[in-house]
């Protein structure tokens, strides 16, 4: 109990949900980070590439002008161009005499922020063109700011989303844990875990359904056992009253050794009957509730019936009742041998008990491709139609059967055990002509 409650409390701690949310957010942010970084890097690289291409084409132009008309033509071209160009470039020429001539120089330029390219001409003169990177850097800075904003949004979305997703994923589990904890602490097995509406059909719903199904089964067993206990305690009161009464009346009567011995013998017999009744009632209750342990094995029905018939051979002879058995071999069912012997014995017991001298009891084993049957047919006194449905009830004894000794539990046990084997038992009867009991078991 303590451990189970501890586990339930541990499950209520947010650790699991929080961990899930953080993992989700970390993955989301990590993925977005990679995309942002790639975008920035590609943009920066392509901007730099474009600048280098501009410089390259300018260099080509200037080199052509220089070749056409020497330094003079180059200077003219540069000046004409720079006057109209939106962005002024830095241009200088270094001749073989190592003297540098600056042809164009943007205002306020910073040599640190300069992308340059140079070209060596045929006569050894070097033309150098430079372009300020300020514009590019400015663009990238704005881009960085925009990406930063995007990243912040992504983190916020990731955390919120992680929290929401986790909460909805953990909620059914929480519901399940809470229900289990409630059931453990109250012992109420009629409690069920509510299924979320909307007809979703995911793993958690499946778990919840299975859990509820398990509770159904447990509740069924508990209720059946409780009912069985009530019945047993009720059914034992009568024989215990007889037992007590016998002892009491022997004690209050005047002392008499013989009468006391008689009373003691009565007590002993009565207590044996109580024990037999208790065992039988427990067997019936367990079989009805599905709690009866069956040692299932392949059982030859012919052997089972032959043994049971053998058990009653002497009794039938003593009563001058003809007892016949038709037990073909090869009819096998899967079941508990001892329990099936008990079923056959109880049916034969009844048949012999309620059949008068000169009558007959025929027991046979039959089989078709689906069912194996034990049929017990007697020429006894039969059962009245109004009593027919009640013969399976515990402790029911028909008006005409009270003269015979018995507990009134034999047929209840037969029915319970047969049904625990997945079989059925049926009766046909005609008062004065006899009865036919048929046990049918799945092959």
């Amino acid at each position, binding site marked *: 109990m303590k451990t189970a409650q501890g586990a339930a409390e541990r499950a209520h701690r947010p650790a699991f949900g929080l961990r899930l949310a953080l993992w989700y957010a970390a993955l989301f942010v990590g993925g977005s980070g990679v995309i942002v970084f790639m975008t920035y890097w590609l943009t920066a690289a392509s901007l730099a590439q474009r600048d280098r291409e501009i410089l390259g084409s300018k260099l080509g132009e200037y080199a052509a002008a220089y070749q056409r008309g020497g330094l003079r033509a180059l200077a003219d071209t540069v000046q004409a161009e720079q006057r109209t160009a939106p962005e002024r470039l830095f241009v200088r020429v270094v001749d073989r005499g190592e003297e540098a001539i600056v042809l164009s120089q943007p205002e306020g330029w910073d040599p640190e922020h300069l992308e340059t390219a140079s070209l060596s001409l045929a006569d050894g003169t070097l033309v150098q063109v430079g372009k300020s990177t300020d514009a590019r850097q400015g663009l990238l800075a704005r881009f960085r700011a925009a990406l930063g904003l995007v990243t912040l949004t992504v983190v916020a979305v990731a955390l919120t989303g992680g929290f929401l997703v986790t909460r909805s994923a953990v909620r059914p589990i929480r519901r399940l844990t809470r229900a289990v904890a409630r059931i453990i602490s109250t012992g109420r097995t009629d409690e069920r875990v509510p299924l979320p509406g909307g007809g979703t059909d995911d793993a958690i719903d499946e778990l919840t359904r299975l859990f509820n199904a398990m509770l159904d089964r447990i509740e069924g067993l508990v209720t059946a056992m409780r009912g069985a206990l009530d019945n047993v305690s009720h059914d034992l009161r009568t024989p215990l009253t007889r037992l007590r009464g016998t002892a009491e009346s022997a004690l209050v009567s005047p002392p008499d050794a013989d009468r006391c011995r008689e009373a003691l*013998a009565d*007590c002993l017999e009565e207590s044996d009957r109580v024990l037999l009744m208790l065992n039988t009632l427990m067997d019936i209750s367990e079989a009805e509730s599905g709690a009866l*342990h069956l040692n299932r094995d392949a059982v030859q029905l012919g052997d089972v019936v032959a043994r049971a018939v053998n*058990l009653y051979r*002497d009794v039938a002879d003593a009563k001058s009742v003809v007892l016949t058995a038709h037990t073909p071999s090869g009819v096998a069912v899967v079941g508990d041998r001892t329990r099936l012997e008990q079923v056959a*014995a109880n049916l034969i*017991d009844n048949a012999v008990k309620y059949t008068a001298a000169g009558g007959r009891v025929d027991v046979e084993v039959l089989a078709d491709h689906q069912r194996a049957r034990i049929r017990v047919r007697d020429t006894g006194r039969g059962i009245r139609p109004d009593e027919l449905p009640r013969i399976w009830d515990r402790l029911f004894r028909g008006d005409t059967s009270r003269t015979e000794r018995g507990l009134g539990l*034999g047929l209840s046990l037969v029915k319970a055990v047969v049904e625990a084997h997945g079989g059925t038992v049926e009766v046909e009867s005609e008062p004065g002509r006899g009865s036919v009991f048929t046990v049918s078991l799945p092959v």
Partner: protein
Amino acid sequence: MRVLLVEDDATIAAFVARGLREAGFAVEVAADGETALEHTRQHVYDVAVVDLMLPARDGLAVIDEMRRRGIKMPVLILSARRSVDDRVKGLQAGGDDYLTKPFAFAELLARVQALIRRATLAPEPTTLTAGDLVLDLLSRRVTRGGTQIDLQPREFTLLEYLMRNAGRVVSKTMIISRVWEYSFDPQTNIVDVLVSRLREKIDRPFEQKLLHTVRGVGYVLRAEP
């Protein structure tokens, strides 16, 4: 023959001990597992009768401990549990036989004696006698005062069982499991029928009656009145 009886219920211990003493056993009673183990350190017993539900240390643990110390005496387990699983568990733990409560004392006695017989491997007799009734196990012939009596196989099995336990009461349950090898009580008078048929053959023609009914307990074959 010494019996160690381990049973914490004083009333049950008293009636079992008295019955065993009347049957000629020396009985030592221990009310808990520790005392029982103490007894086995000091004495040698021919058989132990051990209840499973004991205070402090349960019967299975006691049997296990005795077996680990190399004590080999046969053990009859007494238990209030009747399921097959419990029986198997008891026998696996080192018990030699298993008896469910409530039990008839006659049955306990028969089982104790059977355990001793098995342990000592006493030579099998070839004839059983009770008064002038003689049963030859080899030729399967039964005579009384020289007169041959014809018995059916089941009657013979019953008589053999009663004669092996001559002087002791055997219960109906014991007879059913012995003669028909059925482990449950069929709630009917099949034993009465067989007993009265046997009585018809071995007692009715003779003056002295040998087969007696002990009401509420069972039957006994006794030569002396």
